[in-house]
């Protein structure tokens, strides 16, 4: 798989001015990489390491800690839908919502639908407990969800 585009590399280099250490750009750089390719490729990790003067292992250390970044074998679908399972959502059907969504879309949490339209993730508290059960679609919260609503979002109908 290929690495970062020149535009992405430039974006990363531009961020160096915001921090007193190059390593601090690790997380922003990983976000840039994943937004661009829907995953962080091995080559991208090497390129980020090169720009930040770190070893690929150091980048991967940080990357793997968060469970947020996907490798090139598991790229994200068009949309990434996180279904919250923490207590406030669980009390209002979060577990059932996740189970039904997974069943209807034929995926397990962490997987992408066959048509590549959506990746379903289980989430710990998304910070929208007032609208439980809630989901996160990419980086936008959606409150008071039903399985129908999530499935239509996943299928790109909403």
């Amino acid at each position, binding site marked *: 798989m290929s690495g970062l585009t020149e535009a992405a590399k430039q974006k990363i280099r531009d961020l160096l001015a*915001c*921090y*007193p*250490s190059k*390593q*601090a*750009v*690790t*997380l*922003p750089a*990983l*976000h840039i990489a994943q937004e661009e390719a829907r995953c962080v490729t091995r080559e991208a990790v090497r390129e980020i390491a090169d720009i*930040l003067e770190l070893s690929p292992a150091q980048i991967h*250390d*940080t990357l793997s*800690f*968060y*469970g*947020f*970044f996907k490798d090139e074998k598991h790229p994200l679908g068009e949309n990434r839908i*996180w279904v919250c*399972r*923490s*207590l*406030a959502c*669980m*009390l*209002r059907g979060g*577990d*059932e919502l*996740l*189970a039904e969504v*997974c069943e209807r879309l034929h995926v*397990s*949490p*962490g*997987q992408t639908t066959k048509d590549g339209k959506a990746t379903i*993730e*289980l*989430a*710990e*508290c*998304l*910070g*929208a*407990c*007032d*609208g*439980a059960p809630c989901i*996160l679609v*990419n*980086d*936008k*919260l959606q409150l008071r969800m039903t399985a129908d609503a999530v499935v239509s979002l996943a299928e790109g109908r909403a």
Partner: protein
Amino acid sequence: MTFEPVLLRRWGKPNSQSIETYMADGGYTALKKALAMEPPKVIEAVQKSGLRGRGGAGFSTGLKWTFLPKDVQGPIYLCINGDESEPGTFNNRVLLEEDPHQVLEGIVISGYATKSTTAYLYLRYEYGDCYRTCEKAIQEMYAKNLLGKNILGSGYSLDIYLHRGACAYICGEETGLIESLEGKRAWPRIKPPFPAIEGAFRRPTVVNNIETMACVTQILDRGPEWFQSLGIPSENPKDPGSYGPKLYCISGHVNKPGLVELPLGITARELIDKHAGGVWKGRKAKAVVPGGISMGFLSADELDTKLDFAGPGKAGCLGLGTAAVIVIDDQTSMVDVLYNTCRFFAHESCGQCTPCREGTAWSAKILARIRAGQGTLKDLDTLTDISNSIGIMPGTTICGLADGAAWPIKNALKKFRPEFEEYITSGRRSQSLEVAGAH
């Protein structure tokens, strides 16, 4: 007398996010006031107000600022903790989505008071809308010289950078946040040195919460006396009191989940009944989480506990935490609830300290087995042992995550033990669904 919201007063108003709305409402006068004062005087005002950090630990904000070394040469960093991830908590989200300038003004005031040279607003990834509103608000501030070089001609300069997280609860621990900001895995640091002496990038650093920043703005605007006039005064010389307004998050089995601003010290019962429309479906509360799940549980007969900094502790909970109240009705199994909290902490343990890494995972496994109908009464003793042996309170971990993991276990097994025993001896299995998977 009903309390008029202060921190939330622009919530829901048209264009509440824009700098024009904010300034028309008197915004940034607090900053002007502060810039006219000497920085130590600003710290003094905040100390006088009795403001305690809103992030969970409840440490005095002004006092924290005084821990910075005097006459520092070189940068001082102000890190704003917007990694709000404690289950049940969403007040920072509302503040940033609805009224970012109130928070940002507080950041500039705090930066001025602490002579910080750069501020990093660490924002959890999930808050994409907050990120965008803040990004826009910061641009507006630069355009009006409320940020950048020589702010409003005061000679003080500050830049604020937004830094997005990547879904890890531990980044809310202040040194975990610093490590994450530095681009490393968010393993909390051993202390000392405390961040005030050696924090971000090994420089003197202050880490403050979002709601705390909003409070700073209002303290400068309305004066420390106004802040002191709200809440529960100190009960004894050792108690720093519970002053000011607080944003209470209410979720779970209530008719009206949401965010309410009230003076510190409302009881759980009053909060549920008067401000959340009562327990849903006409049921009764079985248990109430007083301040995010790491604080443990109040039982049904502890609902008159005051939700100030001291109250939950008196009822055997860990503390007020984030004042995020989650109501659990009487039809819910505490085994399911405890499994949920244990699974959460097992998922979020950073893995650095042996007792937390192993203890959280083990307790989640034990509860999973109990829920599968394979539990034994001995398991409850093992769980109690685990909960007593992990955390900074017994001294076995670097940070407080394990205390937060331990408290729900301790409280549940103390306050609801018969329910667990009955569950095990009757050979029951969980009715609720769980989907396995990973991310």
